[in-house]
């Protein structure tokens, strides 16, 4: 088995890890439990961060905009101060550190790869201040605990999470015949219903109609944040009967009787166990781990495991890994920038993320450049994880990631930024060679390409070496 399997399903091997005698077992044994988050620094709860979100929007919208309505300069200054006080510029940096610390040091890196996958399947795209305050804790507290449950349970949690409801506007969706809908002349917002069908469960392959979307939106009406004057839109999610559309609903030919808040669990059950949903999500999993265009042959065993286990994510994950192992030698997969960065960080033991002591924040001034470094790198290589442009998340296709500028950015990172992230004990040529040997069959050929710089240990020399190594076809792709 090629060493590239460790990058196909994880992040490669760190200098103190050795290849396992049985790589398939090594990988499969990582999926039964949820590894603890290892970050030794602050890990705030979703609820705490939502409170901060509330302080920020309230402070800006209800206080500063009114106070400084005649003075854009004073307004900007006051707004910047509020950013510092509420951590608006800080929490996303901390979340990136938690995430990258995890993928670098986790003893269950294969599990972490699935964590990234599901966070992107149930993507929160860049909207309002979700990236700043909410997407990180959503992935930690909603996605992660569900990874040892069933797919259906995951969909239930996601669909009623504050983050997804805010992201897809379900709080603005009123049943037109509901009490509030009639009083205020409001109607549904279809966004969340459409994405629940299209992106999260059955996909357009189920050939649903606009009427199906409307009917599902009716079922979902009432699942909203609790609004009040102080917390604005950041209140907890509840079911507001006065927003809920009365009457029976029909989605994909199935009738759902008028049953208030219980309707949602029923329809999610039917969607999450729908054969087309199972095929769609299995295909996506195979696409992520095996190849851009997976064949039925690759996908079918995953579908079989899904059916046999009634959607147990543990069993589904194991089936995906088994398939990834089986096809490892004959398929290729391109890695998007963030996974590439995580792999480089693990394989070459780079100094990212910053130590938790240095990430400590006092809410008195702007985060410093060191604290911003990882997030800045992610943005510059084109893959700031909580800032996908659309609810369908980041693409898993090579064609979407190969553009002149995006490739140049990889050269930029590897040749200019990376040398500054090499630990002082790791600057020798021997260290690079040992990392290559640990992770690549053709390490000798790779070494020959940087042999000219074998005596160099300056940033420039390291840049020349890593600039070459990190962008070789076998590193960009497996």
């Amino acid at each position: 088995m090629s060493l590239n399997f460790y990058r196909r399903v994880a992040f490669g091997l760190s200098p103190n890890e050795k290849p396992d005698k049985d790589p398939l077992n090594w990988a499969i044994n990582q999926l039964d439990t949820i590894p603890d988050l290892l970050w030794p620094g602050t890990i705030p709860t979703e609820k705490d961060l939502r409170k901060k979100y509330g302080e920020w929007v309230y402070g800006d919208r209800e206080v500063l905009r009114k106070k400084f309505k005649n003075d854009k300069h004073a307004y900007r200054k006051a707004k910047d101060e509020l950013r510092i006080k509420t951590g608006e510029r800080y929490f996303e940096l901390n979340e990136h550190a938690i995430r990258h610390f995890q993928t670098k040091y986790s003893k269950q890196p294969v599990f972490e790869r699935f964590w990234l996958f599901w966070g992107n399947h149930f993507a929160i795209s860049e909207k309002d201040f979700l990236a700043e305050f909410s997407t990180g804790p959503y992935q930690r507290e909603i996605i992660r605990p569900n990874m040892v449950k069933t797919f259906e349970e995951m969909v239930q949690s996601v669909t009623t999470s504050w983050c997804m409801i805010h992201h897809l506007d379900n709080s603005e969706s009123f049943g037109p015949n509901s009490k509030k809908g009639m009083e205020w002349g409001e109607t549904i917002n279809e966004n969340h219903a459409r994405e629940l069908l299209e992106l999260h469960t059955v996909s357009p392959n189920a050939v649903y109609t606009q009427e199906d979307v409307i009917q599902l939106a009716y079922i979902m009406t009432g699942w909203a944040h609790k609004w009040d004057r102080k917390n604005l839109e950041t209140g907890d999610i509840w079911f507001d009967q006065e927003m809920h559309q009365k009457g029976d609903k029909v989605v994909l030919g199935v009738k759902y009787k008028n049953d208030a808040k219980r309707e949602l669990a029923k329809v999610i059950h039917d969607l999450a166990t729908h054969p087309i949903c199972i095929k769609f999500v299995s295909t996506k999993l195979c696409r992520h781990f095996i190849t851009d265009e997976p064949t039925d042959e690759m996908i079918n065993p995953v579908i079989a495991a899904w059916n046999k286990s009634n959607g147990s994510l543990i069993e589904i994950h194991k089936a995906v890994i088994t398939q990834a192992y089986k096809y490892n030698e004959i398929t290729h997969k391109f890695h998007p920038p963030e996974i590439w960065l995580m792999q480089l960080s693990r394989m070459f033991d780079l100094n990212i993320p910053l130590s938790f002591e240095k990430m400590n924040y006092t809410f008195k001034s702007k985060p410093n450049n060191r604290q911003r470094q990882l997030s800045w790198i992610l943005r510059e290589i084109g893959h700031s994880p909580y800032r996908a442009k659309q609810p369908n998340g980041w693409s898993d296709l090579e064609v979407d990631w190969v553009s002149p500028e995006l490739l140049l950015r990889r050269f930029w990172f590897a040749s200019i930024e990376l040398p500054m992230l090499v630990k002082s004990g790791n600057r020798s040529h021997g260290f690079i060679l040992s990392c290559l040997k640990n992770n690549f069959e053709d390490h000798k050929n790779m070494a020959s390409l940087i042999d000219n710089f074998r005596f160099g240990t300056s940033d420039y020399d390291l840049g020349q070496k890593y600039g070459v190594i990190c962008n070789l076809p076998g590193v960009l792709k497996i």
Partner: protein
Amino acid sequence: MNCTRRNFLIGGSTTLFLSGYFPKISFAAMQKKNLIIISLRGGMDGLTAVPVIGDKRLKKLRKKLILEDVLNLNSDFGLHPKLEIFHKLWQKNQAAFVHATNIPYTGRSHFDGQNLMETGAHIPYKEKTGWLGRGLLASNIIGKGLAISLPMPLLLRGVPQNNNFFPSPDFVETKLIDQIYNEFKGEHNELIKSTLDTIRQRPLSMQIATDSDDRKKLALEAAKQLKDQSGPRVAVFDLDGFDTHAAQGGVDGAHADELEEVNKIVTILHENLGQAFDNTLILTLTEFGRTIKQNGGYGTEHGYGSAILMAGGLLKKSQVYTDWPGLKKKELFEGRDLNSTIDSRAVYNSAMSVCFNQDPEFLRKEVFWGDELPDLSQELFKI
């Protein structure tokens, strides 16, 4: 420079023209036409950019946002003083405006709206390609899109081999690419290899390092590329910050700062495109306009109808093209927003037809699913 057949032909014809043997019409037909789209994200306020003059109701509703020193366009409309270049071009029939226009979207969400302004569709997130990408593909113009941004904007997606330019913070030695280029073997590495080719063929001027927030440099380089007869034919710029809920202000407010950015880009394009400006159309694109009435923070909320700012030598004449809906309460959309009486996609469809030498009917069907979009090329553009 590689003297490809294509370059040779173009060089040859130029010489002929200059020596006076070549009929002008044929030369014009051979000239590359450029279409430049500047996305104004956040909701550009058409009534701030191109204010209606002497409307008492507007004055009353926008007491704190009223502009002084408005540049004069005609008896009905003025121009924001920060949009100087448009005023200058207006005198030469090289600037025009479409007013009370928008994409057919009334939902007031930035995210849905920006998605629709790029896909040109009716349902947010339903389409995964952009109208400009589809227009290029339908016109069989491949590899001629240039995005001035790091990710490929949705607007350009749908056609392969676009280039994007958004310099990294430091200079990258492209000789690194030469060192590993031959390692990319086999079919599965073809896409990366051909993209590395694109990078290697880049002119030196594109290998700069800069602060990518420096729009001046980006615009300058875009102009250089567009001027090149074999260079890109469309370019897409992205600006954000138009969402001025507070301190929107008049001449010097937050909206004015953003308009100044637009003005800067168009100024640089105009200066540096040289003669190619005559064969260029620059159009702005936004997700919606803003409410008529100022809010409690002296800003405005998300609205509906807005305006398209246009510049370039392919414009027919200086004009404010509009079917003005009026600003009386009953004339407003939902009693609060400037209405949209022109589907802005009709303007973009017509612009593509002019710049890509395509039948607007054909494009309407290929790009906009046959939606009813009148052909405005006669009214707006030189054809």
